[in-house]
Each structure stands twice: as C-alpha cells, then as structure tokens.
C-alpha cells in the first residue's frame, strides 16, 4: 500500500517536472480566477477556445517536425495559401473546399521535406527560403488583395457550428491532437519520428531510411496546416494573403513553450495544445485586466522567456531526481 503510494507520488512529481507548461497553465488560470470574476465564465472560455484553435492545430503540425529534429518557418504562408484556396472553393463545393487545401498543404509541406531530406540542407535556412518563396508567390498571385467567400454556406459551420453546446473549432483541435498523438505514439512512423529526433545516426544504422522520416514528418505537418487553413477560412469573412504570416510568432512560441526540444526527440502534442491554450488565456487575461495595449507585446515576450528558463530548470531538476532515484536503488 505504502509502496504503491510512493510510486504514485514519484510519477506525479516526474509528470510535473517533465510537463512544466501544465503548471504554468494551472497557475495562470488560478491567478486569473482570483483577479477577475469574469474569467471562469462559460462565455469567456468558449471565446478563448474558439479563438486559439487555429494556433493550436498549426502548432501541433509544427511540433511533429520539431520532434523529428527539423524546424519550420514556412508554415505561415502555407496556412495563408490553404485558407485562401478554401475561401475560393467554398461558395461552390463543400468537399473541394476541404480537400484541396489539405492537398495543397501536403504538397507545400513535402517541398520542404524533399529539399531537406534529399539534399540534406539545414532546416532553418531552407524553410526560411521556402517561407519567402511561398509568401512572395502568394502575394504575386493574389496581388495582395483580400479574397472573399460566400457567407451563407454550410462551410461556415466548421468555424461557427456547435456540437452539444461546444463550439466546433476546439473539438476539431482535440481531434487533430488525438490523431497526432496516435500517429506519434502508436505507429511505427511515430516511433521513427522520436528516434530520428534523438539519434538520427542510430536510426540509420538500424536500417531505416531516415530521409523518408523527414519527408513524412513535413508531409503530415502540411496536412495538419491544411486542416488549420480550412478552419481559419471558415471563421473569417475574407482572407488576406498576409494573414497566415501573423501566426509565425504565436505558433513558434506555443511549440517551444510546450517543451518540445529544438534538437528533437522530446515533446508531447497534448502539451503543445495546452501551450497554445496558455497563450490564449494570457491574451484574454491582459484584456480582462486592462493591460495597456502598447505594453501587451512586451509582457508576452517576458513571460515567454521566463517560461523557457523555468522549463529548463524543471528539466534539470527532473534529471537530478532521476539520477538520485537510480542511485538509491
């Protein structure tokens, strides 16, 4: 009995040391609960959830690539072009408006994957180049204009519909998250992704074609961003080609906050979702507490850096704890 309790205690401690974003999220929520009585209302939470679903979905896609040891900066223009494609086809065909963006996302994602995997270039510079390539191509094709869709189609239900009183966007986010979790944790490809991130060479010595792992990781990312683009398009009256790029900083922030290691091999998609929610709660908190708009960006940056430092300390603590445990045995 006592032994079982002790084991449970260890697991709880290890969980919180390894998932520091959960603590940050809980503390932020509790503080906000005391600071503002509007915070824990259903309406407020529906707002947070619905507004941060696109960020959450895109973050999950980017996280998969980063767990595989890559990096992506080009998701902004990919999201923008998928959303525009969805808006273009939305008045005519519901199925095409969903299918085509996902195909486009997969195609653009695998362009990244192909270059990085086949030529072996650095992911950061490569996706920096493709980011500008996609972005400038998108701007030249659309001439920088707003693309408008039809407001009265079934397509809008994706962004504004409700299932049992819960808005559909967060449900979609949870579905994507569970799917990503299943792929990462319960398929061979997922095991390769983690292995590729932590020990690429070992994986190739084991006889796995490591080039394909990168390619598939970027492909899956593209598909998930395509889903995000569909959701984004259905929540807006029209989409500007510049709008996808505004997600660059929030998405990277969410992925890094969640504790995904930049060198790969470590990370959990559930934490990524919670990190995206944390950003949503933070934005919401600054509105509720009436933080001056001009100071909001700085507050966000400072909290980001503090959370990264905190995460580093927790990981260090966990390593100490683990070595102490193993020494005791």
């Amino acid at each position, binding site marked *: 009995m006592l032994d079982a309790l002790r084991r449970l205690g260890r697991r709880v401690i290890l969980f919180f040391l390894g998932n520091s974003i959960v603590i940050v999220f809980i503390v932020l929520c509790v503080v906000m609960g005391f600071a503002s009585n509007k915070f824990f209302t259903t309406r407020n939470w529906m707002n947070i959830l619905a507004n941060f679903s696109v960020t959450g979905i895109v973050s999950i896609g980017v996280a998969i690539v980063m767990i595989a040891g890559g*990096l992506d*900066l080009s998701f902004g223009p990919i999201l923008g072009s998928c959303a525009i494609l969805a808006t273009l086809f939305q008045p005519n065909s519901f199925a095409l408006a969903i299918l085509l963006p996902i195909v486009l996302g997969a195609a653009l994602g695998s362009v990244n994957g192909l*270059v990085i995997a086949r*030529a*072996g*270039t*650095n992911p*950061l*510079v*490569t996706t*920096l*180049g*493709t*980011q*500008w*390539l996609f*972005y*400038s*191509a998108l*701007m*030249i094709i659309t001439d*920088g204009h707003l693309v408008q869709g039809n407001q009265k189609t079934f397509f809008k239900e994706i962004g504004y519909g409700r299932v049992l009183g819960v808005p559909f966007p967060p449900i979609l986010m949870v579905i994507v998250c569970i799917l990503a979790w299943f792929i990462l944790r319960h398929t061979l490809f997922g095991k390769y992704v983690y292995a590729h991130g932590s020990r690429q060479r070992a994986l190739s010595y084991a006889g796995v074609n490591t080039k394909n792992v990168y390619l598939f990781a970027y492909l899956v990312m593209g598909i998930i961003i395509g889903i995000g683009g569909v959701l984004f398009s259905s929540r807006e009256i029209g989409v500007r080609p510049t709008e996808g790029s505004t997600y660059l*900083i929030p998405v*990277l*922030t969410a992925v*890094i906050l969640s504790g995904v290691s*930049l*060198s790969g091999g470590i990370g959990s998609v559930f934490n990524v979702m919670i990190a995206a929610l944390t950003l949503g709660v933070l934005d919401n908190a600054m509105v509720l507490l009436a933080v001056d*708009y*001009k*100071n*909001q*960006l*700085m*507050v*966000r*940056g*400072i909290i*980001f*850096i503090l959370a*990264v*430092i905190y995460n*580093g300390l927790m990981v260090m603590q966990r390593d100490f704890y683990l070595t102490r445990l193993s020494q005791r045995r």
Partner: protein
Amino acid sequence: MKRTRALRTLLSQYKLLAITAVLLVFMAFVRGEFFGVENLINIITNMSINGILSIGMTLLMIAGCFDISLGSILVLSGAVSIIALRIASVPVALLLGISSGVLMGILNGVLVAKFKINSFIATLGTMVIFQGATFSVTNNKPVATDSDAFQAFAMHNVAFGIPRLVFYFVIAILIIWVIARFTRLGKFAYAIGGNIEACRRVGIKVDLYLIGFFAISGLFGSFGGVALASKIQAASAIFGDNIGLLVIAAIVIGGVSLSGGVGKVGGVVQGIILIAIMDTMTNFLGLVGYYQLLFRSLLLLGVILYDVLSVRQAEQRLERLAVETLRRLERKEVG
C-alpha cells in the same frame, strides 16, 4: 587536374561576384540608365544599413549562434535616440541609442551563454520583448524628429553626393575584417563555432566570448538602427519586421555556415552587394512588389543547395583519392 581544382576554389570563393558581374552585363544591355551616377550612389546608400547589420552579425554566426532579434534591436535603438533628442543634444542621443543596442546584445548573450537557451529560442523571445518595448516607449505610434544635426549623422554629404552612411559601412567592414583575420577574438569565433565543447575543455572563456559576440552584433545593429532613424528622421516598431531573418539569410548567402566555424567577411560583403544589385534590378525591370523577395528566396535556396552539393562532391573526391592511394600502396607491397 591541378588547374581545374584551382578554378573550382576560385569559383566557390567568387561565385557571388561572378553572378553580380553577369547581372551587371545583362543590365548594361537591357537598361543602360542603370549605370547612372545617381542610381549607383543610391544603391550603395541603400545597401549600407543592411550591410552594417550583416557585417556586425558575421562574427556571431561564425561562432555558431545567431540573433533573430536584430530587427527589434534596430527599431528600439532608433526610437531611443529619437526620443532622447527631445531632452538631450545630438551626440548624447546617438550615444544613448547605440549603447542601448549593446545592452540588448548583452542580454541576448547572457540568455544564450549563461542560461543555456538555444540562440533561436532566446532571441525569438527577446525579439518580441524589444519590439514590445518599442511599442511602449513610442506609445504605439511612429516617432519623428526634424533635427538637421541628427540627420547629418548619416546623410551628411562627404563628397560627390556620397553620404556618411557609406563610409560607416566601409569602416564596419574593415573593423570586422581585421578582427576576424588578425585578432584572438576572431580566431576564437572560428574555434567556438567549430567545436564549442573542445574550446571549453581547453579553457577558453566561451561564455564571455559568446556574450561579446552578441554585444558586437547588438552594437552594429543599434548603429544601423540609429543610422536608419537619422536617414528617415523617424522610428517605428514595425520597421524591424523580418530584418533579423533577412540579415541571417544575407550572411548565409555570403557563405557563413549556420552551424558555425566557416565563413569569410569578404564573402558576406559579396553577398550584400549581390542582394543590393538584385533588388535594384527588379525595380528597374518594372517588377515591383514581392518580386524582390521572390528572387532573394531563390538565391538563398540556390546558394544553400550549391554549398551542400559542392561539399558532397568534395567528400566524394577525397574518398576516391583515398581509395586510389590505398590501391597504389597495395600494388607496391605486392610488387
């Protein structure tokens, strides 16, 4: 054999200049007015600020780190100097602006070296902080000045219509070239970029040097920021969007490896010149708007692909050479 090898190294060192030359010849045939004195002075003036920023970050990139927050350092230091102008004299304002950049660089360096945060993550965070700080100090609006003395800092006509800015760029190149080539600081940059763990074992104060490289990058970043503020007489938090990434791309095009240890100041200068010529060319050919970014991204992708492929080829050549030598030795032993 020897001659082709020499040609190959020559080509890999001066490939950017070669492309520039081809572009210039093309322009000479298509648009002769490209070579007007006024246009040429415009080109070098416009590339000077980006040039100063890129040259300043070169040492940091050689040491294996980079600084995405450079754009935010640029706008914050510009805003600081313009706001300081309201209460202080021009030299004090300039000094305040530039020293604020050094402080921001040191903050970046401490986060990377002491807190062991990856430089991508750390400078992503400080990028948001510095840009947010600019929003705060400028009250969310662009700030402007009409001080002629302040404008003279960058735009004073030295000779033949060439502004001071260009000379600052030349001096910046000289300073960084001397540091990289002849000083211990420069040698340590290559060493740290090559193998940071080995440097630590040997007893080089890696943390201190890294903070120093970040501070140099911040110094040149804020110098560029103050010069930009002086050139256009204004500062705003949105001027710096993307500048950090553009500068990193320019340095990579110039042949500095992102993982550090490799690169030359001369290469970076070639890259800056090529990008400036390309940008002006697209304007001259009537391709306004996002064609500049399109060509820049194609150049970046082309250069990194070329670099990777040439490294692979060199490796294959070495391998072939090794196999040949082994065979020759075997034959000798048998004989």
